């Protein structure tokens, strides 16, 4: 009896196990086949060319982007294009696993340094020929000056600039008026504005460094670049504790120690930061081009982009991230990839003119449209900030490179560095030396 009971029990479990196994196997098979059919064939080797794009803007972005992509009519013998939206969640793994299994895209956007990482793996089709062809049809000259060079590596251009993610200063014009100060143009004036704002209970160095919020790390780098410094030398090696950097970080530490920054900012998420803008506790701060839209409400109307500040030495500079589109070696046709990108860059204007929420455009012609000019903050960024922006590679170079992703772009050492400065209990030299020793082992 016992054995029969146990036997029956185990046989039920066995059957359940087999059923479950069959279900999982079927689900896996279904997933793999659906993925294949969706993308129009295995890897880039099918008949269609796979274009993967990220959700760069609001809900209107990807539908319009898909429409543009699917409207592509290739020349005879070249592949048509399919469209796939890739979510930001775990996007590195999404791309890495797809590319490793040769099921990845032929053309994609992605993380700002993704092209350089995959170029390091030999997976990127360099864009030199494409850019040569764009010199003939006017697209090349339409890029902002110096922008294409940010994509240049020793082996060629890893991608083409697509949209610009920028870090700029913002101020609340009502609060500045209440404090009786004009927007600053130099570091000294900025300190004065902060002091005046403090008198009305408002912080002038408004930003955060909490979970998922890398703005403070970016702004510290921006201040270094502003002062003629930056994190990497010409050999693309970290050079954090340079005199220019120490001076810049000392200036920021001064702002913190004088109480011009929110004492709780070290752990502020972006939501906390925007809540402080809404609560009118931040009168001036540093953020992305979309800060006013993100804050929303009545305060958004008062938020104005400031001008780039001149450092003590009179230099100007800022940090931006030229997001890009890259081509992969795994493509049904390299000519097809290039032809599609040419079409895409000639027709993508509506992504900006229809206000889909994508970052700033890489092409000058888009910034001359009436729709773009309707936003004075965007115009100010293009006119005043764009010419002085530099990348992570400053001061040593202009082009991005492989090691940026694993050393400074959203990494733990950069976040610790940012939080330690906002804590105000370190010296500039010590914090920069700690950063240097933390990122050196991450170089590969």
């Amino acid at each position, binding site marked *: 009896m016992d054995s029969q009971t146990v036997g029956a029990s185990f*046989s039920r479990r*066995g059957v359940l196990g087999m059923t479950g196994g069959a279900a999982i196997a079927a689900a896996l098979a279904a997933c793999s086949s659906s993925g294949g059919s969706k993308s129009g064939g295995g890897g880039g080797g099918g008949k269609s060319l796979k274009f993967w794009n990220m959700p760069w803007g609001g809900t209107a972005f990807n539908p319009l982007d898909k429409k543009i992509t699917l409207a592509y009519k290739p020349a005879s013998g070249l592949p048509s294009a399919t469209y796939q939206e890739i979510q930001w969640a775990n996007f590195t793994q999404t791309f890495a696993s797809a590319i490793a299994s040769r099921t990845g895209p032929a053309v994609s956007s992605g993380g700002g340094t993704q092209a350089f990482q995959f170029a390091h793996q030999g997976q990127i089709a360099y864009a030199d020929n494409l850019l040569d062809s764009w010199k003939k049809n006017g697209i090349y000259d339409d890029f902002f000056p110096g922008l294409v060079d940010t994509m240049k590596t020793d082996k060629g251009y890893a991608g083409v600039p697509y949209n610009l993610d920028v870090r700029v200063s913002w101020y609340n014009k009502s609060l500045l008026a209440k404090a009786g100060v004009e927007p600053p143009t130099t570091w000294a004036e900025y300190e004065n504005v902060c002091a005046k704002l403090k008198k009305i209970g408002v912080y002038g160095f408004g930003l955060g460094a*909490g979970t998922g919020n890398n703005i403070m790390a970016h702004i510290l780098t921006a201040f270094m670049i502003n002062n003629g410094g930056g994190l990497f030398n010409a050999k693309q090696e970290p050079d954090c504790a340079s005199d220019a950097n120490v001076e810049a970080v000392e200036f920021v530490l001064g702002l913190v120690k004088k109480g011009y920054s929110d004492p709780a900012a*070290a*752990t502020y*998420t972006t939501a*906390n930061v925007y809540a*402080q803008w809404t609560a009118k506790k931040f009168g001036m701060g540093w953020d992305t081009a979309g800060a006013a839209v993100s804050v929303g409400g009545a305060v958004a109307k008062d938020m104005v982009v400031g001008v780039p500040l001149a450092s003590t030495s009179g230099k100007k500079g800022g940090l931006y991230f030229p997001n890009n589109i890259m081509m992969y070696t795994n493509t049904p046709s390299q000519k097809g990839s290039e032809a599609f990108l040419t079409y895409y860059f000639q027709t993508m204007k509506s992504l900006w003119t229809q206000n889909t929420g994508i970052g700033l455009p890489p092409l000058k012609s888009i910034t001359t449209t009436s729709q773009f000019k309707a936003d004075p903050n965007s115009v100010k960024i293009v006119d005043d900030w764009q010419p002085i922006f530099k990348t992570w590679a400053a001061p040593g170079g202009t082009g991005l490179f492989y090691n940026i992703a694993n050393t400074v772009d959203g*990494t733990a050492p950069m976040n610790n560095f940012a939080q330690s400065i906002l804590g105000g209990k370190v010296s500039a030299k010590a914090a920069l030396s700690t950063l240097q020793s933390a990122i050196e082992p*991450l170089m590969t």
Partner: protein
Amino acid sequence: MASSSTGALVRARKGVGVGGRGRPPGSVRRKRRSRFARVFAIFALPSVALLLLLNLYPVIYAALQSFRNGSLIDSGTFVGLRNYTGILHDPAFWHAARFTLVFTLVGVFGSWAIGLALALLLRTRIPGRSIFKVLLLLPWVVPVVVSATSWNWLVATPQSPMSRLFSALGFGNVLFLADPLLAQILVCVFKVWISFPFMMMMMSSALASVDVNVYEAAKIDGAGKWQTFREITLPMISRSTYISWVLMTIFCVNDFPTIFLLTGGGPVRATQSLVVMAYLTVFANFQTGPGVAIAFLMTIVLVAIATLLYRQIRKVDIE
């Protein structure tokens, strides 16, 4: 024949008729066992294969990764034990290990103490007991993303309700998340808050299994409340207590969302546990080797702790 009648008598003593279902003779039993083993193996095979595929393969792959210097997009080259020695010489690892220990001790014993106290309280006949039970379960039931966001709202800025309350009570500008020590305390308190309902349920079910006659006997013998609790209640629920400690230890050591959603491991690594450190090493610094090595070291320690506690459970069972 004799042996057959002896067998029949034995079966009869066991209350089973001669022709009934008593224990079969040895050879039949062996045959039956062997047939059962074969059937068992056949039926278990798909499940075992799936388990191996879904669990063992990733573990082996991860173990191999811990000996390589790969990234998220590259498997890297073999570096031997360098990842392990590097981690063990990193002060950040030991800081994370210390915080994990504190977080786990507070999480396990804090939630157990509160859970047990509430379980004892809910045994008494108080009005609205069922409503209290449901309300007390909420911290466990609500998704941690929601509760972490709520706690962030409560404490993140100087204008947050808790910050204003403490300020009104004369504590000044209390920076719950920005001050390293306060952030550590807050994360531990948050863990206790979301975990005590689980302990309460475990202890409630354990207490329900204690025979009320034992308490009555103790009362007759003149035992006081504290003595009854210490000498009867605690020993009688010790098995469930040890099991809940084992489970909560695993929950605490492996707890990623509680810490990450509230502080991200900051400020400046103050609340960085080993699991958060492993995550940041792999997904922020793109160092899969050291990240997986941290996870493996964690697993080894966790298995050791779980083994010790299970031995304690077995000891209790024997006693």
